[in-house]
């Protein structure tokens, strides 16, 4: 695991469809013309994603932004192997992703999904049980990663005894303990208050630099996207397609009062404003979400 030097190239990068590896960095994720559509029982086919194509290099921090509810989470779950695309394919390290791969990819959701009957350390242990990791190694990882998220000493606590922000830290800790190179995050800070969100964002960037992960982060917050990512993938809707890929080269730690931060925010907002959903397509989005939930529950790639 290599640690990454912070982005030091100042200035706003131009938009382009990135192809091949930059600066000799390995391509970890390749999304190739991924499309996803559903046939809802009530109506005709709903196209959620259309021809999504982009690449994620080693140590990238990619943020996926777009209007609320349509497609971003589906895209992430396709990358995670939880959903199968209708067309196109996702390649992780060159291999097609048809089912979840907990050795390579871990995913974090908006809901921390901790098991209330288990202690904190037992919760972190859950994926390690799945991966059949020996007990001594488990102990080591649990204490190491608890320290990284700043919650050493909470091993014996229960989820009901900690706050929302702490729960998300534990969820992050759980994903980190899997020691996958790729971390997927679906609006993990969405349910938290703003201050906790800012604190956790900072910590996430620190962890990313310290441990050297490749992160794909879904959000609908513009400032969060620009604060965190070195590459922003802007999705449109009806149907969801890649509108733009923006490189963000601001030096870290990033400042909200940096004029280029503001310029980027405005640029993102201009992109998204034209995609603002009307009331009718909002309803379509909610129908999509419902159909998606049904499908995600039982999954398509059952072994």
């Amino acid at each position, binding site marked *: 695991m290599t640690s990454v030097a912070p982005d030091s190239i100042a200035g706003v990068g131009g938009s382009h469809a990135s192809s091949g590896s930059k600066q000799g960095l390995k391509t970890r994720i390749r999304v190739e013309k991924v499309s996803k559509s559903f046939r809802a029982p009530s109506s005709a086919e709903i196209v959620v994603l259309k021809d999504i194509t982009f690449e994620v290099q080693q140590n990238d921090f990619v943020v996926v932004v777009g209007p609320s509810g349509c497609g971003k989470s589906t895209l992430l779950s396709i990358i995670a192997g939880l959903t199968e695309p209708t067309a196109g394919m996702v390649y992780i390290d060159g291999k097609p992703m048809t089912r*979840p791969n907990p050795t390579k990819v871990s995913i974090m959701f908006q809901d921390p*999904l901790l098991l209330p009957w288990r202690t904190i350390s037992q919760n972190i242990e859950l994926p390690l*049980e799945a991966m059949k990791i020996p007990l001594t190694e488990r102990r080591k990882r649990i204490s190491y990663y608890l320290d990284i998220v*700043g919650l*050493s000493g909470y091993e014996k606590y229960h989820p009901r005894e900690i706050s929302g922000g*702490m729960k998300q830290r534990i969820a992050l800790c759980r994903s980190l303990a899997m020691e996958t190179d790729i971390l997927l995050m679906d609006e993990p800070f969405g349910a938290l208050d703003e201050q906790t969100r800012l604190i956790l964002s900072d910590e996430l960037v620190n962890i990313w630099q310290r441990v050297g992960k490749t992160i794909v982060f879904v959000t609908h917050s513009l400032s969060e996207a620009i604060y965190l990512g070195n590459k922003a993938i802007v999705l449109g809707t009806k149907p969801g397609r890649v509108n733009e890929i923006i490189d963000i080269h601001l030096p870290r730690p990033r400042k909200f009062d940096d004029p280029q931060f503001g310029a980027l925010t405005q640029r993102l907002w201009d992109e998204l404003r034209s995609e603002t959903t009307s009331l009718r397509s909002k309803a379509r989005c909610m129908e999509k979400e419902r159909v998606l939930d049904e499908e*995600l529950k039982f999954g398509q790639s059952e072994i």
Partner: protein
Amino acid sequence: MLNRSDKHLVKREGDDRPRSSASKRLRTNGLVVLLAVAAWLIVWQVSYSIFDLSPILTSSPILILKALVSMILTGTYHDSPSMYSNLEITLQAAAVAFLLNLAIGFSLGIMFGFFPYAGRAFEPLILILQAFPIVVLFPLIVLVAGISLMGKVMLAILIGLPYLIFNVASAIRSVNQGYYLLGRSIGFSSWTSLRKIIIPESAPLFLQGIRLCFAFTYVGVIVAELVYVSNGLGYLLFWSSSSFYTDNVFAIIFIIIAIGAIIDSLFHIVERKFFNWKTNPQS
């Protein structure tokens, strides 16, 4: 960033001093209840003596106590049939009916939980079973199953089963859908997800269903015994009331309720020990 020294900022269960004030409250509450019951018993006893009430139509706390003591110590009073052997009969029937209920209730409940469409066909049946007193169906069932163990068990099952099926099915359906995603994303097979995540998550609601089911099954057995004068505690009740031993009647009612309460408290102990995380979701 939160570190070790910030532990004091996080409220831990049992930290501040909730112990003393909570148990103090419990003790004062208990005391009040005890006093109220004692007062009521005194008023009852006094009214009985003063108004010279008939021992056939009513009874008094002292008479009931005599009957109760005799029943518990010797198993009989006024030459009644043995309480203990009848108790055994009732409990046997209740156990059989309860175990059958568990087997049927969980199988159907889990099936309906995961396949709600399968439940649609059975829904009207279950609604009917709950909508009116099953006692009305007793004559039909007795024709088929008789009034001994089989009949009692069938009646008790009819009464208790819908509660279990309903609770089990809705427990499964109410599980947070995210847990399925979590299980798959970390590489659990469907079976392991079920075993490690879904079942423990539903377990407290299962226990609720089991508890309700037992209560109704037990009552069902007693009602069957009472209505069909077969054997068991319900029969003992009938015998006492038709012999006009009203003090016996009260004593037996007390015993019936006490047994039910004891068994229910066992469930409560299990809940307190294992399912604290569900009853106190945010401490």
